[in-house]
């Protein structure tokens, strides 16, 4: 098994080298190694990597979210794994860019890496430790110019809690006002900004749950702000 993995990695590196002639197609793994120093306090990768504060990262590409044995994940990440989220280049890219947009309760205490090129370097580095890299752009990067963090002007919208209360009646059919967490997460008392970030992540079809993608798709920015204002204030 170990042997096969190494062979594959070798093959990949060769392929990367071959195409590196045409330069920075999806990041520089060597530069990524330096960026990974920031992550090392919590994560390890490579031979003998173990779970520490964060899960070990061997085989992260193609792995289901929340799936490393023996690691205790936040409920949010574990749920996303159950909902079918597989880590691929795009998902990891967004997660590293803004972990909270992905899973509001993530234990990954990291502010996010805004620089797209640096993220590509970091992921190119991590990619070497996965057997079966998936969905890696083989030609030019497809992620240029897409800023997945929520626009500050959207975060600044002041929501109308009265409108939020009316809209919330659609949410409370499933999300209980008691805040109970019973197959469906409680959303009472969330900080408004986390709420807005999470809803926009669904709206972008970036978080995987189909019901939430549908619900968020037809909410305007003002409506999301109104809901956020309402749910933040509910006790």
């Amino acid at each position: 098994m170990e042997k096969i993995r190494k062979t594959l990695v070798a093959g990949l590196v060769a392929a990367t080298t071959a195409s590196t002639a045409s330069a920075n197609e999806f990041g520089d793994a060597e530069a990524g190694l330096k960026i990974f120093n920031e992550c090392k306090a919590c994560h390890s990768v490579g031979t003998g990597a173990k779970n520490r504060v964060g899960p070990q990262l061997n085989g992260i590409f193609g792995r289901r979210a929340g799936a490393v044995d023996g690691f205790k994940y936040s409920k949010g990440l574990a749920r996303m794994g159950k909902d079918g989220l597989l880590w691929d280049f795009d998902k990891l890219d967004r997660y590293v860019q803004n972990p909270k947009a992905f899973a509001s309760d993530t234990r990954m205490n990291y502010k996010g890496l805004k620089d797209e090129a640096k993220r590509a370097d970091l992921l190119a580095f991590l990619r070497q430790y996965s057997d079966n890299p998936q969905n890696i752009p083989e030609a030019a990067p497809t992620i240029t110019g897409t800023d997945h963090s929520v626009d500050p002007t959207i975060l600044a919208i002041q929501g109308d809690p009265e409108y939020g209360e009316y809209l919330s009646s659609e949410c409370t059919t499933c999300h209980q006002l008691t805040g109970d967490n019973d197959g469906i997460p409680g959303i009472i008392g969330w900080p408004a900004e986390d709420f807005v970030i999470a809803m926009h992540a669904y709206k972008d079809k970036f978080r995987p749950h189909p019901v939430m993608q549908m619900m968020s798709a037809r909410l305007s920015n003002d409506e999301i702000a109104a809901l956020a204002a309402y749910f933040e204030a509910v006790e």
Partner: protein
Amino acid sequence: MKLNRRGFLGATAGAAAAASLSAPMVHAAGHGKPKVVVIGGGAGGATAARYIAKDSKGEIEVTLVEPTRTYYTCFFSNLYMAGFRDLGSIAHSYGTLAAEYGINVVHDWATGIDREAKTVTLAGGATLNYDRLILSPGIDFVDGAVEGWDISAQNKMPHAYKAGSQSELLKAQIEAMPEGGTFAMVAPPNPFRCPPGPYERISMVAHILKEKNPTAKILIADPKEKFSKMALFQEGWGNHYDGMIDWVGADFGGGNVSVNPHDMTLTIDGDVNKVDVCNVIPAMKAGKICDMAGITEGNWAPVIAHTMQSKVDENIHVLGDASNQGDMPKSGFAANSQAKVAAMAVRSALTGSKLFPAKFTNTCWSLIDTNDGVKVGASYEATDEKIAKVDGFISKTGEDAELRQATFEESVGWYAGITSDMFG
């Protein structure tokens, strides 16, 4: 019959109003707080009553008329039949609505509606005045829909499509089936309450038979060529209950059926089948109070999508299964969603509160076997013509076990959510 009754009511509206004078009055008429009467305490009615009482903060007097003291939800009653839930877990009372929301809960049958006088007559003799009336009576069965079956046969051949004693009866009959016996279902034509309901029921019956009576067979006569979540159910039946279920659709005469409750036979397209249990789910129509109010067209009561007001009478709102609203399925989730739109419209009309744009949602979860849950759902908006579907999703065939389990767990969470949204 229906036309006659409607004609009768119309012709004697004055007489009915006069008669009501001698009956005891629950409320003084004409002054004080605006009054809302809600008929039917299910997913539509209980939700509407609760939201109007809660959000009007005492400005509106709400009366909820519901004959039963204990309400059994139809949703999850199939799970009860398979032993995944006990009967108590799908039973709800109206105590919280009365005690915490100040709703006047009246356990009685509504037997007449005088739209001109704006009164509701109850079987017990009382009369209720209303400024707005909300009808959420659910379904009744169309007379003569299945040859050989009428309501007097429901003990021999239960419908179990109104939960409670009928669910208990059907469960007992399944458990008493002889070894290798046959469970039959006569499925209903569209439109009907809970489109995936009959097929979830088949799954649950198969689950229990596989455990207790594995050589038993299941036979379904269906007047339709396809049904809700068909691919998902068929895949699941193949995976879990291979060879046990025989579905006879319209193409093979599934719509040409008659039953004989005395001999326990089901005849499909001339073919007589001796069966041990026969679950007859006849064609449906709006709960008969809608007919009595004279607001139905065909089998259902047409409504204006923006407010759920009857197209016949602006002082009446119709919710849930009984309404003909457009694209939404007849489901508990849909009724609950429509109730909130209606509650907002009623408050706005009676107290001048803000009227926001109507939004509707539905999701229906079904269980195929232990931890094998699937779902279908959509979002809707009001147009001048109808409630129109905007966007939707459905579980996919071939999903892995973990996702199916998560979907089932989600449905359990939803059950807790919607029942507390209905009953407080």
